[in-house]
């Protein structure tokens, strides 16, 4: 029974084993098959990397004006377009990529597209600049030859600046200088068309450079490098995981195949021993073996071929059917070698053959055979108990290719310019690339098996890390910035993408992080922030920062119920320091002023430079105004010390305006405005002081401002009129002349007092047209009155220092007025103030001398009120002296005053000056003056100033009375 049953059982066992064998080898083949299409993806990523690098290089060369033509650029753009198309096709879902890779590729295409467009603009701007530089280079000399030396120098330095700006494009300073030169050249007079074109070219390079810088920054900020590394790492990590699994699976399956073959052979042997069915059994065995996708050969203990399947001939196709039964294994290998089956150089062939033969003798050995036709075969040898060898050949070409590709990929990862870290599913580091080591100082050995938390700086919060961990363990990728610490303890900013990598079963097998060191960019951002918010000269916050802080502090004060003071500090007369000592000294002074103010302020105060010579202090959380007052006084106190800048020390005074929240405004800009107006009030009232904003004072200022604006058109609108106050001969009480006085009536302001508008008019230079108007009218009126009455002899007119400045041409004006009206020069007296002599004697003396020479009288007004420098009286020949009304007002019984006025009159007489006393209001005053032999007087006692027609009436009436008296 057993004899009958056994072969059946054995055959059934063989059949089962054969099925297992087929399944195992099929599985092996499946492993070999690369389901990811990975080679295509990595090849295209590689292409993208190369093109991206090429584009970077080309754009850098373009922006450095290194290209003379852009054909390479066009060719590259065409290749990039093709790449973009190929990338899009790769990213299509029918390729078995995971979603993140797809979106990454889509992002890459967009980024490359953006870079391409930036690059096109870079080319445009570069060619613009090259063209204009070329023009400047060849035309500057020619154009400069036709200019004066100053303009020529300016032009040459313009070119230097232009070039400098192009060579060192980061120099904001050079840009400013350039703009300044262009402006100065434009302002320096009429320019020929040549110079204009030149400036136009300079302007073009300047603007194109700015545009180019923006475009380059935009180009460089497109993160293709990180994106490409990210994609490569993603791809590599997926591959890594897959390849490892593949290796393991393959080994297991190969062992299974080996075991199965052995089992089959064992069964057949048993069959053959027990039954004389060897031939049939052999046939069955061959049939089973032939179904296998691997080549199988059985060698006897002498290593001669006993049995093989058809695949062996197919695998060793160069010797094919020559592999006959009985051939020795060694000869078989030699035969294959001679037939050129192996991809091994001829000179190395003997050694290779020896190695293969030696290795194949060992049990459980494996040897790789690189074949000449590109295939890779793996030969596994197993020794059976009786000394026979079973050898199995697998085609591992695909596996080999995957391995090679993996090497390329890992090269990409290894050489990546960003840090790449791969961890296992628990977050233990398995791999880091050299760039990571470079940045952090940690080597692979030091970090393998550890958790990335060792890099934490403590600046990113635990919550951040937890959020990241939650994100990636749930299978999504996380993007963000890390503030990490290197091995040496330095802090670095890293922009990171952390993503899970799944194995084929969909489980998370790894996490990978791709990090770019953005410390430099962060520093740049900080610098930009500083540039935007800080004043580069003094390193103090600027206006924008001051306003922002003010805004925040107001919000704080609103809650706490306290006050915030804004103090605006302006240097008095800073302009003269700049003019006298140069801009460098001016800058140095501003720096020291900033420091000095900051030293006076509390720690919580914000000191800012608003611009020019204007500073500000924001004082938060105040109880009252007292603290602001204290600081203002402290600052003014400290400013009594001169500043030590190159050369003699400089003394600076300040005008400080203070506005307080909430009393003077609820908004930063209103406080700013009000502090400003308080500061201007200080400026208007003698400077070197501080003032709080006050609504009442502000209304006065507003009135003054209104007066100022109305005054500008007053002459044109005919609002300026002349009133006349009679000059009386004190002895005879007759009218001998008049003083012309200026009056202004405005439709909206009404009557504006002269002491309000005259100083303003002088300050704004409006006194010149006003004075001209008065001169013209007064001379005309006086000439008429001289014709109408015999007693009227002369007219006095007030003249301001501004009118006497050489450029005003006042003597000519007077001459014309006299000529036109027929008034003799001797009938005109011009009154000037004492202060004019002190402030501006040299400038006015020429005009006065010429007037004097014309025969016009010159009188000193308000004598005795100012410095009363008698020296001036001797240096210039005046014709008259007016004693100020303040002396006359006090002319009572007070003996001191009487003596003073008397001696003034005596002095004038001694100097041969006529004396006019003004402001006579009482009969008593008149009597005193008559006693002192003062000849001429004016005042309300006689008559108030009158409009010209009233004065005419007054004059005629007085003349009639006098006549009547004579007649009577």
């Amino acid at each position, binding site marked *: 029974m057993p004899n009958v049953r056994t072969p059946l059982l054995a055959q059934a066992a063989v059949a089962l084993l054969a099925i297992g064998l087929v399944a195992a080898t099929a599985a092996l083949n499946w492993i070999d098959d690369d389901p990811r299409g990975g080679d295509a993806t990595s090849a295209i990523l590689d292409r993208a990397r190369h093109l991206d690098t090429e584009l970077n290089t080309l754009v*850098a060369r373009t*922006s*450095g*004006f*290194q290209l*003379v*033509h*852009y*054909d390479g*650029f*066009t060719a590259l*753009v*065409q290749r990039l*377009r093709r790449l973009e198309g190929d990338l899009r096709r790769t990213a299509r879902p029918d390729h078995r990529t995971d979603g993140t890779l797809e979106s990454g590729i889509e992002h890459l295409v967009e980024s490359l597209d953006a870079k391409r467009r930036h690059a*096109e*603009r870079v*080319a*445009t701007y570069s*060619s*613009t600049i*090259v*063209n*204009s*530089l*070329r*023009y*400047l*280079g*060849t035309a*500057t*000399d020619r154009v*400069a030859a036709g200019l004066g030396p100053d303009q020529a120098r300016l032009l*040459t330095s313009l*070119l*230097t600046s232009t*070039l*400098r700006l*192009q*060579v*060192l*494009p980061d120099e904001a300073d050079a840009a400013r200088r350039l703009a300044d030169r262009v402006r100065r050249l434009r302002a320096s007079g009429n320019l020929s068309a040549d110079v204009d*074109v*030149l400036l*136009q*070219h300079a302007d*073009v390079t300047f603007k194109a450079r700015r*545009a180019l810088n923006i475009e380059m920054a935009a180009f460089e900020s497109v993160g293709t490098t990180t994106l490409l590394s990210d994609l490569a790492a993603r791809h590599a990590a997926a591959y890594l995981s897959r390849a490892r699994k593949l290796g393991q699976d393959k080994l297991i399956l190969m062992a299974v195949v080996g075991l199965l073959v052995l089992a089959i052979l064992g069964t057949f042997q048993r069959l053959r021993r027990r039954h004389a069915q060897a031939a049939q059994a052999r046939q069955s065995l061959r049939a089973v073996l032939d179904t296998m996708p691997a080549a199988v050969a059985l060698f006897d203990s002498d290593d001669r071929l006993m049995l093989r399947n058809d695949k062996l001939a197919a695998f060793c196709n160069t010797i094919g059917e020559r592999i006959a039964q009985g051939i020795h294994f060694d000869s078989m290998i030699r035969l294959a070698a001679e037939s050129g089956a192996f991809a091994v150089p001829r000179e190395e062939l003997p050694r290779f053959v020896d190695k293969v033969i030696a290795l194949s003798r060992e049990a459980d050995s494996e040897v790789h055979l690189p074949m000449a036709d590109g295939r890779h075969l793996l030969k596994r040898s197993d020794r059976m108990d009786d000394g026979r060898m079973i050898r199995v050949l697998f085609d591992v070409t695909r596996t080999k290719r995957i391995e090679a590709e993996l090497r390329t990929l890992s090269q990409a990862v290894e050489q990546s310019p960003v840090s790449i870290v791969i961890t296992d599913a628990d977050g233990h580091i398995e791999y880091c690339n050299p760039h990571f080591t470079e940045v952090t100082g940690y080597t692979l050995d030091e970090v393998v098996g550890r958790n990335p938390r060792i890099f934490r700086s403590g600046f990113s919060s635990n919550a951040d890390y937890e959020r990241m961990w939650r994100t990636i363990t749930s299978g999504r990728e996380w993007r963000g910035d890390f503030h990490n610490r290197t091995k040496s303890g330095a802090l670095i900013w890293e922009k990171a993408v952390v993503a899970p990598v799944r194995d084929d079963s969909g489980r998370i097998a790894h996490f990978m992080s791709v990090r770019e060191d953005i410390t430099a960019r962060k520093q740049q951002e900080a610098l930009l922030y500083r540039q935007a918010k800080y004043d580069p000269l003094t390193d103090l916050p600027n206006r924008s920062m001051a306003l922002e802080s003010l805004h925040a502090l107001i919000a704080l004060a609103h809650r706490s119920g306290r006050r915030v003071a804004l103090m605006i500090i302006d240097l008095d007369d800073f302009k003269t320091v700049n003019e006298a000592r140069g801009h460098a000294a001016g800058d140095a002074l501003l720096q020291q002023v900033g420091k000095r103010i900051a030293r006076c302020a509390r720690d919580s105060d914000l000191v800012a430079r608003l611009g020019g010579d204007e500073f500000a202090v924001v004082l938060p959380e105040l109880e009252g105004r007292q603290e602001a007052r204290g600081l203002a006084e402290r600052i003014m106190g400290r400013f009594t010390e001169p500043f030590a800048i190159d050369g003699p020390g400089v003394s600076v005074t300040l005008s400080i305006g203070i506005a307080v929240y909430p009393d003077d405004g609820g908004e930063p800009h209103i406080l700013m405005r009000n502090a400003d107006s308080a500061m201007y009030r200080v400026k208007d009232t003698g400077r070197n002081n501080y003032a709080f904003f006050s609504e009442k004072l502000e209304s006065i200022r507003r009135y003054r401002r209104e007066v100022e604006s109305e005054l500008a058109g007053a002459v044109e609108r005919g609002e300026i009129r002349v009133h006349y106050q009679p000059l009386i001969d004190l002895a005879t009480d007759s009218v001998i002349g008049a003083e012309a006085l200026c009056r202004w009536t405005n439709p909206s302001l009404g009557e504006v007092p002269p002491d309000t508008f005259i100083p303003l008019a002088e300050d704004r230079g409006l006194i010149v047209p006003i004075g001209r108007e008065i001169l013209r009218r007064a001379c005309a009126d006086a000439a008429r009155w001289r014709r109408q009455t015999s007693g009227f002899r002369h007219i006095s007119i007030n003249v301001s220092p501004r009118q006497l400045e050489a450029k005003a041409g006042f003597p000519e004006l007077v001459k014309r007025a006299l000529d036109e009206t027929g008034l003799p020069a001797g009938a005109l007296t011009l009154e000037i103030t004492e202060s004019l002599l002190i402030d501006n004697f040299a400038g006015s003396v020429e005009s006065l001398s010429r007037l004097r020479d014309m025969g016009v009288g010159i009188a000193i007004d308000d004598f005795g009120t100012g410095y009363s420098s008698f020296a001036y009286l001797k240096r210039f020949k005046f014709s008259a002296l007016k004693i100020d009304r303040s002396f006359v007002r006090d002319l009572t019984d007070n003996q001191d005053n009487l003596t003073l006025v008397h001696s003034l009159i005596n002095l004038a007489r001694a100097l041969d000056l006529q004396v006019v006393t003004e402001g006579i209001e009482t009969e008593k005053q008149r009597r005193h003056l008559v006693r002192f032999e003062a000849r001429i007087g004016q005042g309300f006692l006689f008559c108030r100033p009158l409009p010209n027609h009233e004065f005419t009436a007054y004059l005629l009436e007085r003349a009639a009375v006098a006549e009547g008296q004579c007649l009577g």
Partner: protein
Amino acid sequence: MAVQGVALVPLVFVVVAATGCCLAASSAIAMDRIPIRTISPADDVSPVKADLGRRLFTDRRFSDAGDVACVDCHDPMQGGADGRPTFRGTGGAVGDVNTPTVYNAAYNLAQGWIGRAETLRDQIDDHLADPRVFGTDWDALLDRLGGDPAIDGAFVAAYGNGPTRATATDALETYLRSLVTTGSPFDRFLGGDPTAISEDARAGYALFRAYGCAACHQGANLGGNLYQVLGVIRDYFADRSHDPAPADLGRYDMTGDARDRHLFRVPGLRRAASTAPYFHDGSIATLEEAIQVMAVYQLGRHLDGDQIRQIAAFLRSLEPD
């Protein structure tokens, strides 16, 4: 770039300081290298496909009305353009811009005055759909071509099957890529034969480089590979006699970016001598005028009669024999 910049500074300043002169500009920007290259034919052009493309190029069935073909605007006898100020399309439609030459179009960064189409293929699609050009679509066109045994045969010979959108596009593109103006006297001059062009042309070439024309008109096609503003130094549109037109906006029309106002693709000049009138608006009638206009508006220079004549002679030497 920074390294390069630092290295250049001393050079620039020494020269400027020493002579007060400014040739440093040219040493700094490497202008002494030759900006114009010999033009070479596109490789891998299949003669069979190109010939088919040429047949399509002259085929009036491209328009629904059967009245215009590609060749009506891009006439090889007229330098690959049409000699009109602005183009004319199907049904007498009047175009808004001057027809650029079809020659050497493969060397362009993008197609058309403002780069409306990035590639020749896109340009073909664009023209087909544009109501002012053909105003048709592929289905209608292929219907019209489909019934013609001669065309069908040619397609089968070239592609193994009848006309499809892909094969028709490819044939036209192949033909366009074959339109390269090789073998001009100037190319022979560049190749080392100084007598290949006249003395005037040589002088014109020197001016062309020295005056900065070659800053934009460079490369194998003397342009085509760059966008530039029309009126860099002087406002071309303010001085022009007729009113501004939408086409004057230039590439702005494509991008909507204000910086692209009046930005146009710099035309290649290989066929300039035979493709009057000039500029996107076709407003300039002669080559000589065009040279002067360019000098004034792009370079800020005024050329005298001799200079213009020499530059024109140079441009004429670019035409193939």
